């Protein structure tokens, strides 16, 4: 038997040598009935007896110092049970994205910083109490625009002002290089240079952050809204100085995360502090406006790319300079110092690259994980530039990508987040564990009818012009991330009950459906025969947060290992019953049988009855880190057909064909939904979504769902989803991660289709009707026509 490469600690279990009976089936999600009947209780739906309601007073200025604060009127308001300000919280630090920040500081470095927290008998009283807190601010000159900020030294710090992580990240170029970029440009026949800008974007989860913290004098229990219960537990223990064993975090349902809830947030810390102070449970729930201002946003970026190619399309050199506006605080958990340039380094073959990414600390709103965080600006710029290059070369954009197709990578996933990996020369070509991006590009372009593209004659059409465009992408998410700690446990009981214990949150990707499917396959039982215990740190082993598409690729192997270990123990009990050796036994569809004689079988439950009552069989699984070789990544391509109304500037997307290389879908029904979700984000980023700030004060202007314009049902086109399959023995049934990144190619594909329709390149997102109209008018004034 070939040794398995499954990424687990210890000896990997052998691969099942039989057809799959559960994995790959389009099963319904397990919690669908609770969700469609309104029975699902999200954190904000939970009420505890004797509960208080908390509210936070936020600093309205991006940079300001408190000169005077007086909370005495708030404290005196009937119904107020606790008020926290800088006066009674000296030395407290909160943990947000693992960033230890001062709780209730004197000086604020971003809009929405916490000035005070109140707990009261109801929300109205708590809100009223906030209004009674007198605060006098000295408004300090904020750093707002990244490029402007780069031109001057940072202002001297005032009072307790701090910018965590600044010494590591601020203004420093992080570099990926390979070959000799000067020589590469000399060898080029065509050189194309452009600058792209991308906007601030927001998560827009429909559930705002809500939590209840309950302290009983010894233990803290929190009903949180977070993508990982274990992340929240450890962050709370750390910032509150508690033993982690005294902190329990529960998330049964989560109303959307998209990165906004990837890590612990300060409101949970304040709720816990207020509960400790009052001895009562405290609920905190954000308003929509608070959610916009106080959650992280996506970095707005400015990306210059210079690319050289030979006449036949072979890329010879890429130079890139990417500047990201980081806000005021960072660690490696919420800022990825080489993520933009990682994509440029790895998507297309190019022997000579010099790529730098510069993060700039400003007093703009804080930043952090947002569905495909820096993948979005990276892929938009790179895949827009590839089309520009194709036009300059007179090549088909699909052919140009195929011409520069790679089967190897040079920079690993973890290096994209590692400051110490900067500046090295990445020349080693390391093959992939699996990659079928070429098939994906073919599927996507075939799906959209790529051949039509050539016959679309803009002159022959009316005011509404049709266009087709494509983009490909590589994703560093979806193969696991450092520190690669993911555990699973399986128990089989005497009565036939099977438990899978996983410390995960189901954020809507169907994680609590997928993981038991994996366990059921390994055990040889039906999907619904496995009960899953999840969303609660009590009784579950550590699991990563559900972000970076990491649950399936990281938890999958651990679940396989745990289930396989329990299964082999059960086979030990079955051996005397079947009269064959353990190695000869197999299980499938609830039966255990001898491999040589499948008809010779015993029901799973009958074997379970041999388990000692009260002493279940256990299996443990634990993920091992990714190896240095081969390289691992996920891939995909999208093609878009759209119409541009040259009179209104409106863009109507007619169809999107999306093909992705995720290895294998454990559950294609749920995987397809994830692809839709990515495309929804991608359309918004391309055409409508933009966080706008007052240029003088730096305050967020678009803090509601009317001004921050996410796509609706009428904006969403028909989407053809192709889930390809490719063998990748490092993952559970070849399943790499799928959830996050299908938004990454959508904006460039849309932008390239707009060019195909009207012959104008748009380099600044979002491509709104006013920009389209202005560009068409400018072209008309120059007397030019569209002659593609």
């Amino acid at each position, binding site marked *: 038997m070939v040794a398995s490469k499954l990424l687990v600690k210890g000896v990997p279990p052998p691969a099942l040598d039989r057809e799959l009976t559960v994995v790959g089936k389009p099963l*319904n*999600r397990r919690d669908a009935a609770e969700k469609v009947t309104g029975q699902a209780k999200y954190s904000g739906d939970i009420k505890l007896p004797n509960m208080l309601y908390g509210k936070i007073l936020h600093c309205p200025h991006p940079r300001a110092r408190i000169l005077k604060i007086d909370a005495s009127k708030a404290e005196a308001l009937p119904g107020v049970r606790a008020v926290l300000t800088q006066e009674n919280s000296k030395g407290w630090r909160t943990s947000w994205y693992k960033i230890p920040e001062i709780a209730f500081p004197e000086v604020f470095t971003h809009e929405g910083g916490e000035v005070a927290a109140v707990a009261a008998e109801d929300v109205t009283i708590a809100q009223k109490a906030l209004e009674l807190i007198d605060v006098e601010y000295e408004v300090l000159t904020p750093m707002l625009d990244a490029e402007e900020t780069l031109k001057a030294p940072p202002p001297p710090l005032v009072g307790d002002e701090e910018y965590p992580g600044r010494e590591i990240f601020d203004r420093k170029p992080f570099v990926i290089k390979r070959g000799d970029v000067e020589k590469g440009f000399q060898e080029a026949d065509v050189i194309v240079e452009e600058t792209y800008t991308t906007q601030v974007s927001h998560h827009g989860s*429909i559930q705002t952050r809500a939590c209840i913290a309950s302290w009983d004098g010894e233990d803290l229990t929190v009903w949180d809204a977070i993508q990982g219960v274990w992340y929240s537990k450890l962050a709370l223990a750390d910032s509150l100085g508690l033993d982690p064993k005294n902190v329990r975090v529960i998330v049964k349902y989560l*109303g959307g995360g998209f990165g906004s809830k990837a890590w612990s947030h300060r409101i949970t810390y304040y709720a816990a502090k207020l509960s400790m102070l009052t001895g009562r449970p405290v609920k905190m729930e954000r308003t929509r406006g608070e959610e916009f201002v106080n959650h992280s946003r996506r970095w707005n970026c400015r990306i210059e790319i210079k690319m050289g190619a030979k006449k036949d399309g072979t890329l010879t050199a890429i130079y890139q300079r990417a500047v990201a506006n980081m806000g005021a605080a960072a660690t490696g958990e919420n800022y990825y110092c080489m993520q933009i340039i990682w994509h440029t380094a790895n998507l297309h073959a190019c022997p000579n690259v010099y790529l730098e990414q510069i993060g700039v600390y400003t007093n703009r709103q804080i930043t952090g994980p947002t569905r495909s965080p820096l993948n979005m600006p990276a892929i938009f710029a790179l895949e827009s530039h590839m089309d520009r290059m194709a036009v300059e070369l007179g090549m088909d954009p699909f052919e140009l990508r195929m011409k520069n197709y790679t089967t190897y990578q040079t920079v690993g996933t973890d290096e994209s987040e590692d400051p110490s990996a900067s500046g090295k020369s990445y020349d080693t070509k390391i093959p992939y564990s699996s990659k079928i991006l070429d098939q994906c590009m073919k599927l996507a372009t075939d799906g959209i009818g790529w051949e039509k593209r050539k016959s679309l004659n803009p002159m022959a059409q009316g005011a509404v012009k049709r266009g087709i465009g494509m983009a490909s992408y590589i994703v560093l998410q979806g193969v696991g991330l450092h520190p690669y700690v993911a555990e699973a446990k399986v128990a089989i009981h005497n009565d036939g009950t099977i438990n899978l214990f996983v410390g995960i949150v189901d954020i809507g990707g169907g994680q609590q459906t997928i993981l038991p499917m994996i366990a059921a396959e390994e055990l040889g039982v039906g999907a619904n025969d496995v009960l899953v215990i999840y969303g609660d740190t009590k009784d579950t082993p550590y699991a990563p947060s559900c972000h970076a598409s990491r649950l399936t690729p990281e938890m999958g192997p651990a679940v396989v290992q745990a289930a396989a270990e329990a299964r082999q123990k059960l086979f030990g009990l079955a051996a005397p019953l079947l009269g064959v050796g353990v190695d000869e036994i197999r299980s499938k569809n609830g039966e255990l049988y001898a491999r040589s004689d499948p008809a010779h079988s015993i029901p799973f439950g009958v074997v379970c009855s041999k388990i000692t009552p009260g002493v279940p069989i256990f299996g443990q699984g634990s993920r091992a880190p990714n190896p240095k070789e081969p390289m691992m990544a996920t891939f995909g391509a999208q093609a878009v057909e759209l119409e541009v109304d040259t009179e209104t500037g409106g863009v109507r997307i007619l169809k999107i064909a999306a093909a992705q290389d995720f290895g294998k879908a454990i559950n294609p029904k749920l995987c397809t939904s994830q692809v839709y*979700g990515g495309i929804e984000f991608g359309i918004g980023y391309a055409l409508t979504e933009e966080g706008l700030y007052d240029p003088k004060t730096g305050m967020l202007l678009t803090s509601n*769902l009317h001004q921050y314009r996410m796509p*609706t*049902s009428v904006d969403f086109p028909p989407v053809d989803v192709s889930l390809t399959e490719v063998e990748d023995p490092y993952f559970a049934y070849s399943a790499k991660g799928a959830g996050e990144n299908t938004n990454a190619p959508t904006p460039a594909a849309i932008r390239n289709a707009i060019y195909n329709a009207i012959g104008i390149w748009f380099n600044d997102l979002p491509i709104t009707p006013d920009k389209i109209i202005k560009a068409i008018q400018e072209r008309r004034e120059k007397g030019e026509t569209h002659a593609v």
Partner: protein
Amino acid sequence: MPSRKNLPESRKRIALTVNGKKVERDIDSRMTLAEFLREELDLTGTKVGCNRGECGSCTVILDGDPVLSCTVLGVEASGREVLTIEGLASEGELHPIQEAFIEHDALQCGYCTPGMIMSIKALLDRNAHPTEEDVRKSIDGNFCRCGSYPNIIKAAVVASRKINHK
């Protein structure tokens, strides 16, 4: 300038029908219908995603019409009939829209789902044979950030057919 006066207090008695049951309560007159359902009746299936009539997650049916319950006062609902997501399944049997949502995976995180289903219920009540375009328009005020729109539209059409065949 924030008011420095004491909190205003004005309580009103309301009587209405919620999911077929008569309900009477004394409530704060500022309370929205969404708050009334969630806080007074513990009907937390109705979600409040924005509290200003922009996201659609609080959609309920008031006297047959879909309304954003965060923009309706509790006192306005007095004497009227409210249907929420909790009232859709009857005697443990799921409504065809709910069944179709499950089968076609018309949800991911599930937070917009109750409002989405109530908007579709109101559509099917007034239009037994909706086209995909009709469905799109009927839910254009309901955000689904998970992007389940294609499956939601499919589920609504399938549900309408199923209802018509009953």
